[in-house]
């Protein structure tokens, strides 16, 4: 097991253009499950590929287990990677797929069988060893890819959106399986995804990236409750955090904290809220509409409620946000700042 570190890591694909990854400093913890989260084009996959050795950094250093690995080929980095497509070798049986890393690293032939069977049983695919990849379901392929990754007992696991090819139903169970798998092997894992649900559910820590820059690195609760800037605030959460510009600050509050005034007992900021649309999602209701009055007239906001049966389209209601749930961001830098008093009206 090992710690992955990057120092000022930068990748510029075309000279003169903005870097795909810019000055990323990062240190994983021993055995942790770290998630790179960001929209497409945020540089998360490039970052992962540099750690894997599939992409040469423009500048900066990568360390694995304290050793600078910039000039080592992927095979020398003691990493394993699961690709978005799983990249199973289509002409080889499952057994040979899993055995391939052993062969490639000249592990003694006598050990292959035992190790392959160990990896296969760990993932419950012992019965599939004779099949070819094309005869497997999506979930089975993912497990073969994981078995192929674990079989050489790597220092670090790199996973590149491994769930994105599965249908929604399978994704939830595959996610759970991955979590269990990680708990069992305890290897440092870096997981790339654009799906915030995956990130929140699986990550010990989440690193949010946008345009090649790290926006925030923290636990899931950290990044959700205390977003470092407006990007993180709106990227996480669905619907996203409501943001309102007031003078030189931006004030934000989550939809679940924007509720009918009578249900709030703490000190709260009151609003007049005109309901324009109501969506029933089973366990919750998403209500959207506009604020009414003074500075924030016409501002579109969302509310997430456990019940909205007594609200009616086109009517106005008294809503409020508890003071303690308000987040403040500097208007020019968009970074979070200490709570302050603002004039709402």
């Amino acid at each position: 097991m090992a710690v992955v570190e990057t120092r000022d890591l930068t990748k510029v694909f075309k000279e003169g253009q903005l870097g795909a990854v810019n000055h990323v400093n990062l240190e994983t913890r021993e055995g942790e499950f770290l998630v790179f989260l960001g929209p497409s084009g945020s540089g998360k996959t490039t970052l992962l590929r540099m750690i894997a050795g599939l992409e040469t950094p423009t500048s900066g250093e990568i360390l694995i287990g304290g050793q600078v690995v910039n000039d080592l080929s992927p095979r020398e980095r003691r990493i394993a990677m699961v690709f978005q497509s799983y990249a199973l070798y289509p002409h080889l049986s499952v057994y040979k797929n899993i055995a391939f890393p052993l062969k490639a690293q000249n592990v003694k032939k006598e050990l292959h069988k035992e190790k392959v069977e160990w990896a296969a049983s760990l993932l419950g695919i012992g019965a599939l060893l004779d099949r070819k990849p094309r005869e497997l379901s999506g979930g089975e392929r993912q497990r073969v890819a994981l078995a192929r990754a674990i079989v050489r007992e790597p220092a670090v696991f790199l996973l590149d959106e491994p769930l994105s090819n599965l249908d929604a139903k399978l994704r939830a169970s595959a996610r759970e399986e991955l979590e269990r798998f990680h708990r069992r092997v305890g290897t440092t894992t870096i997981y790339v995804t654009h799906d915030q649900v995956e990130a929140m559910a699986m990550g010990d820590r989440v690193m949010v990236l946008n345009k090649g820059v790290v926006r925030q690195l923290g636990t899931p609760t950290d990044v959700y409750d205390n977003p470092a800037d407006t990007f993180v605030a709106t990227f996480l959460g669905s619907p996203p955090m409501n943001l309102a510009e007031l003078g030189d600050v931006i004030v934000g509050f989550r939809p679940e904290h924007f509720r009918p005034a009578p249900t709030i007992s703490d000190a709260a900021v009151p609003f007049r809220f005109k309901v324009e649309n109501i969506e029933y999602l089973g366990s919750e209701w998403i209500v959207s509409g506009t604020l009414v009055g003074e500075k924030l007239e016409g501002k579109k906001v969302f509310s997430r409620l456990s019940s909205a049966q007594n609200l009616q389209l086109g009517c106005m209601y008294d809503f409020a946000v508890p003071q303690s749930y308000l987040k403040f961001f500097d208007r020019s830098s968009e970074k979070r700042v200490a709570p302050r008093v603002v004039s709402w009206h």
Partner: protein
Amino acid sequence: MAKGISRRFWGKLVHVLVLTTFTILLAFPFYWMLITSFKQNLDLYTMENNPFLFNTKPTLDHVKFLFTETRFVRWLGNTAFVGVVVVAITLVLAVPAAYSLARLSGRWGERLGIGIFLTYLVPPTLLFIPLSRVVAYLGLQDSLWALILVYPTFTVPFSIWLLMGFFKSIPKELEDAAMVDGLTRFGAFVKLVIPISVSGILTVVIFTFTLVTQEFVYALTFISSESNQMIGTGIPIFLVRGDVYYWGALMAACLIASLPIAFMYNLFLDRFIAGFTVGAVK
């Protein structure tokens, strides 16, 4: 650090070496044509001279000879004429056939498609003997029309095969929409499918033309007089007088005739390849 750099260096060196070697091996004859075309005879036929260099001044004599003293221009003209007519025939036969085989018929379409593909595998060297009789029977010996009659035997099957792939890639919904909008099936083909397929049809045009210029066996068998030759047969047969090879003019002729064909082919290469890969590449 040094390890990675030196590995990359050696990798690059080997890459460059391999590429240079192959490029020289493959392109050398054409380089040699180029050099020979502009050398004086005295230089060409003096064994002591380094053949890689111009030992005497370069000359245009061979090119002049080629254009004034031989039927080279006539052969170019013959080739262009046959090429154009065969292209026209090929399009008329292959475009509708490919479309109907790609779309209209079910299992029979597939079988016919395979049959057409198989005819492409039938080589001229299997058919030139009986065809020479057919040509004689029709009174077309030593006539360019013999070639025009016979060349579509190899241009049509491959063009159908190429176009079938092309038509299959056009979504059916597009034609369905056109028919819902009031066009007939044939109308949809003419007004919608053909305009969409211009690039595929262009590929067939170029491909057919280059195939015609490259053909040798039929031209050798059917055409006898000097003035009716195609470039592929005229140059090797009629630029040699008895045992005398006019190497300068020969090489100039080869180069001048080859390059335009090579350029055309190169532009459409990827499409031709798609026709050869029989679906083994997706």
